[in-house]
């Protein structure tokens, strides 16, 4: 009974939404509304340029611009978690201790290192902001092609 009800409602549910996924906290909408994407670059990230170019293109697509926020490296992931930042550019390992709290992109500008503990350039996003996360994942993949 439950299975049948679910299967019957599935096309309606999926049909009702124009695009999946959406952001849990509406980051993309806020960027469009404010015209501003708040990004922090962690200290010790001399090769941040490709990640920033990618984020600028994303912001431009949403009629916004990237605004760099100065924040201490220690605080940046917390600010991201709290929604005070939209993205953080820095060097993170694939097996980063932060990986459960923030969403890390694939390595930018290089192949994924074999050693999961080696920090490489990545973009960190706020957990649950799945529209933003998917858009950036797509942009990173297209850039690597």
């Amino acid at each position: 009974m439950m299975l049948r009800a679910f299967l019957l409602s599935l096309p309606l549910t999926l049909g009702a939404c124009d695009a999946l996924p959406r952001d849990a906290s509406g980051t993309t909408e806020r960027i469009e509304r404010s015209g501003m994407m708040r990004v922090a670059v962690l200290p010790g990230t001399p090769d941040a340029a490709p990640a920033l170019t990618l984020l600028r293109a994303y912001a431009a697509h949403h009629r916004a611009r990237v605004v760099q926020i100065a924040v201490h490296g220690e605080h940046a992931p917390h600010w991201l978690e709290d929604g005070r930042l939209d993205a953080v550019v820095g060097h993170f390992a694939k097996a980063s201790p932060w990986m459960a709290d923030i969403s890390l992109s694939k390595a930018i500008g290089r192949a994924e290192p074999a050693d999961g503990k080696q920090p490489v350039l990545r973009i960190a996003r706020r957990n649950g902001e799945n529209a933003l996360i998917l858009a950036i994942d797509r942009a990173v993949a297209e850039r690597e092609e």
Partner: protein
Amino acid sequence: MSLHGGIPRAIAADVRRGERLEYWTLGWMASVVLVMWLVMGASQAMKAAVIEDVLSLVPAVVFLLSTHWERRRPNRRFPFGYRRANSLAFLVAATALLSVGAFLAYESITTLVKQEHPSVGGITLFGHTIWLGWLMLAALAYSVVPPVILGRLKQPVAEKIKDKVLHTDALMQKADWQTGIAGMAGIIGIGLGWWWADATAALFISLSIIKDAVGALKQAIAELLDGTPRALDSNELADDAKQLIAVLRTRFGKVDVRLRETGRYIAAEVDCATPTDVPTAAELMGDDLAWRLASLSFRPDPREPPA
């Protein structure tokens, strides 16, 4: 078949069918675990679903082990044979079901309390980056199919061979497809930006699993404590046990009758002198269920304890 070992001819074919269904379960569910593991990404909800699927294999494994032991003959060290392996397997299966329910409830409550927002990003396949949620939905949809089919096939077999392990495994399959659907609802919820959808759906389902598991545990404990045989799907006394007590009392007067269950078999003890004409199992249980009465003993003077 001997007095305390082997499987009666009357149910041998059905037990073999039960075993075949369990081998299918192991194979099919292993493929589900593999598919889920491939697409789970960093999603905690999917990780929980994979762990739950692995745990769900326990009843199938212990059913196969218990039927293997049930066939063994009694020996000097185990003169009553190994039929109680089924009772032990029932306890293990019920505990596995409870673990799945408790694990799911813990994961859901933790997610809701910590307000964890699950991230599901993209995956690049053949040059196209798509939302990983679509693959997760496909994997979860696949994970729902085997348990629905296998669970329905197992129920009538469990009833025929009076096997509570197989019945608990059918409950586990119900838990499997329900958590699969909760997972699908959760992924769609994540897609719609409702971070709480997954955990809330899983929490409701975990409560139903825990309820089934606690019921099964009560029955398993009753069986191990030599309680009167219980029904397959509840802690009520089994209908055939109630009928056997009534038949024995009709034959031997208002005497005490005690029944206990060893796996799928009933042992009866009647407080009266051994009659000259001992009834057969078929006379007491009917032809279909005669196999279930493994022993009938009489105690001429039950008040006098052994010296």
